[in-house]
């Protein structure tokens, strides 16, 4: 199909473009560069979570936990176990660093995916709010375990991570994530995710194993979160368990809801918007001419999330881009679209 080829070329173009921009990014103010990288990481996280929460209709509140696993595994491997690789390849040169970075990112992703499998399987018996509580608890368990693991610094955090993350890596990963999710949902196999969300009984009745789809969604979403975590660790060079708390998970969920559950473009857009908004609020909270109360609200992310969500529910319950919770192009092109029933999960 032609459409499929176009997607591949767009992916390739996105990767090349991020390489070129990355090459000339030396002149960018390092604060702005950091924010641009965070945006890319958040796109990866949100698009991955959208596969679970948006397309498959499950409700995960533990995405920061998967991210933490990826971050710590990647950081630990690249910091403690890079010496052998560097020795074998003649020191830390372009080639050896690239190889190392790719390997630790994938290792972090795989570790997170394994955790996704572990939380995905027992969660299959749970729906809606109950699933949300379990995943929330799971994310917290991961954080607490890390907090009590001395090998990675416990509550002090883990420092001395090499700064490998560049614009190129961040946006290549974001582009690949978008590509994988979009291609998946557009395939006959991937439509199974949508049918699981629409109606589980009917899915089973036509022979779709809902179990397999739910677990696949969790594993894939967790994998991308793990890779994003690896990028994050190698960008900030210091990670600490409290950076992966409940609030971080909420942040990603808000991106998904804001963008429109089941709209990859919307979710990516919301990731950009929310990341910028939260950074801007840092300045707002510093403006002395503003009343004290507004500065305090601006400094408190949880209040902002709540306000954003309340406003969204009142004004545009389907999300910014969500005409209805499905991907853009149906087979053969749709002529009409269903109105989204109340947003229940």
């Amino acid at each position, binding site marked *: 199909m032609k459409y499929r080829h176009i997607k591949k070329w767009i992916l390739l173009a996105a990767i090349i473009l991020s390489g070129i921009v990355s090459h000339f990014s030396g002149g960018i103010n390092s604060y702005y560069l950091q924010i641009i990288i965070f945006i890319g990481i958040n796109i990866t996280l949100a698009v991955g979570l959208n596969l679970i929460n948006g397309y498959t209709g499950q409700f995960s509140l533990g995405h920061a936990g998967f991210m933490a696993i990826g971050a710590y595994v990647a950081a630990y491997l690249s910091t403690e176990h890079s010496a052998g690789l560097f020795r074998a390849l003649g020191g830390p040169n372009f080639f050896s660093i690239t190889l190392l970075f790719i390997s630790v990112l994938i290792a972090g992703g795989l570790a997170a995916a394994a955790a996704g499998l572990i939380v995905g399987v027992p969660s299959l018996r749970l729906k809606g709010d109950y699933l949300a509580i379990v995943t929330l608890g799971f994310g917290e368990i991961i954080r607490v375990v890390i907090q009590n693991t001395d090998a990675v610094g416990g509550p002090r955090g883990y420092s001395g991570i090499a700064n490998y993350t560049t614009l190129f890596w961040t946006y290549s990963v974001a582009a690949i994530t978008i590509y994988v999710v979009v291609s998946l949902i557009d395939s006959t196999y991937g439509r*199974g995710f949508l049918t699981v969300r629409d109606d589980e009984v009917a899915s089973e*009745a*036509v*022979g779709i194993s809902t179990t397999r789809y739910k677990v696949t969604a969790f594993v894939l979403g967790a994998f991308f979160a793990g890779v994003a975590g690896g990028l994050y660790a190698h960008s900030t060079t210091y990670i600490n368990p409290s950076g992966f708390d409940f609030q971080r998970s909420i942040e990603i969920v808000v991106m998904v809801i804001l963008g429109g559950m089941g709209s990859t473009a919307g979710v990516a857009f919301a990731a950009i918007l929310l990341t910028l908004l939260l950074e801007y609020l840092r300045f707002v909270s510093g403006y002395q001419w503003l009343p004290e109360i507004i500065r305090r609200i601006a400094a408190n992310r949880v209040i902002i999330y709540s306000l954003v969500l309340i406003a969204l529910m009142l004004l545009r319950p389907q999300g910014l881009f969500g005409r*209805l919770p499905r991907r853009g192009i149906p087979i053969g*092109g749709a002529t009409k679209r269903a109105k989204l029933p109340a947003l229940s999960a």
Partner: protein
Amino acid sequence: MLELSNLAVNYGSIIALHDVSLKVEKGAIVTLIGANGAGKSTTLRTVSGLLKARHGNIRYEGEEIGNLPPHRIVERGISQVPEGRMIFANLTVRENLLMGAYLRKDRHKLSAEFDFVFEIFPRLKERSRQVAGTLSGGEQQMLAISRALMSRPRCLMLDEPSLGIAPILTKTIFEKIVEINQSLGITILLVEQNANLALEISHYGYVLETGRILLHDRSSALRANERVKSAYLGGR
């Protein structure tokens, strides 16, 4: 073709089926009638693997299928049209049908199936690009039946196809059920509250009451039966 023996099913501590034995002959239309809560839908859901029996056997073409997961049962040629027209509301009509053929290995050559269901339900062809949630109730039922046919089943189980549909459409749908049975030779197990209609089109009938088979006979005989008449057919 399909044989249930001494089937018992619980929902937690509530017993839905006490002891159900029934037989569906190849090529027949067999109907299961009974009041609300008699266990009709439970029986179908157990056959399709959505529920697990506490004890008893389900044999299909001589093999035990009681312990198989739902997708394995579909693979063997038993397809269910779930109660309440559970279509995929956010997919188009065409995509719904494609998903019906989800287990088919030859997904790329489904034109014969599409032709067939579009011939039975021409309305669906007109609406093939429409999102299924925007169809009328009757059209959704047609879609649910068509979707079940896409897997090329040998046995089709229909759960309350008349539920919430205009009487005139109900009649059409029942005619189509007969057509599917006759032109494709698909065996049909029909669960229905509208006992009159169900016994009219079926060959054999079972009357279910509070989880037990009360009586069973040829449909024509059941329609003449005084007990059935007074309890289910509104006669005196």
